[in-house]
């Protein structure tokens, strides 16, 4: 019985592990928002993988206490290639980040060796009063 189970396992696992080129890779993509010298109180970013088959498998919060909790996102984004993340903090300006800050980490799983390319769109960034501010959004893969 055990022998048959082992053969069955190998038969099922071969497509995943049999060929190096088709191996899944898990990557942690850190998303940064740079608000310059203004305190960042809210942001909304659309993130998508553009060149390879990928699945979003997890979303974490950021480095600053104000954005440490995971952001809002649509659960339907899981197992997809596009997500909109957003968060805000009602803390006073002294307790908000400014400059370049990591607001979230998006975990993705890609198939194959091709490095994924990403597209980011900053849909909103605001100061503690809710006024829109200029900011830039960037991302980078966290070193393993």
């Amino acid at each position: 019985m055990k022998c048959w189970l082992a053969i069955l396992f190998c038969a099922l696992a071969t497509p995943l592990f049999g060929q190096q080129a088709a191996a899944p890779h898990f990557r942690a993509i850190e998303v940064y928002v740079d608000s310059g010298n203004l305190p960042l109180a809210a942001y909304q970013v659309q993130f998508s993988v553009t060149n390879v088959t990928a699945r979003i498998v997890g979303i974490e919060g950021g480095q600053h206490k104000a954005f440490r909790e995971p952001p809002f996102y649509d659960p339907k984004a899981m197992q997809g290639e596009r997500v909109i993340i957003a968060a805000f903090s009602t803390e006073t300006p002294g307790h908000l980040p400014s400059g370049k800050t990591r607001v979230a980490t998006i975990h993705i799983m890609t198939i194959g060796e091709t490095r994924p390319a990403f597209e980011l769109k900053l849909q909103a960034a605001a100061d503690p009063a809710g006024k829109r501010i200029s900011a830039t959004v960037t991302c980078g893969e966290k070193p393993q």
Partner: protein
Amino acid sequence: MSDSLPPDSEQDLEAPARLVAAFKEGARREIFVPATVDDAILKAARLQLRPPNKSSVARWPRWMLWPALAGACAIVAFVIRMERPAQFAREDLNRDGKVDILDSFKLARELKIGGSLPAYLDANGDGVVDARDVNAIASRAVALGKERPQ
């Protein structure tokens, strides 16, 4: 204290940063401006600023123009009690034409200040304006919609 001669040094007129921060905190009072107030004022602006059509001017006698404008301004001032117009989504609290996290953020700030809030802010329709409405607006802001990734 009476007004005396102006001081010689402008430095006497500066305040330490801590004091300025305390001034701002003491004066901080965010007044929620309902969308209906914005709408009334913007409507008055459209009436006042847009040049009239030649054809409409031809139809209106000149002596009627100013009383008509004054009447229109008076009418839009009563729009305060009217419901939110259809061109803005219910959740678009900051009236910028889109529903995003800033609308949710605005409601969160209002809730933090406290006090009674208008019923139209009840985004999830449960009869209460609370943090669940904040979450409801945020959920709509990040919804992927009908588009699906390939």
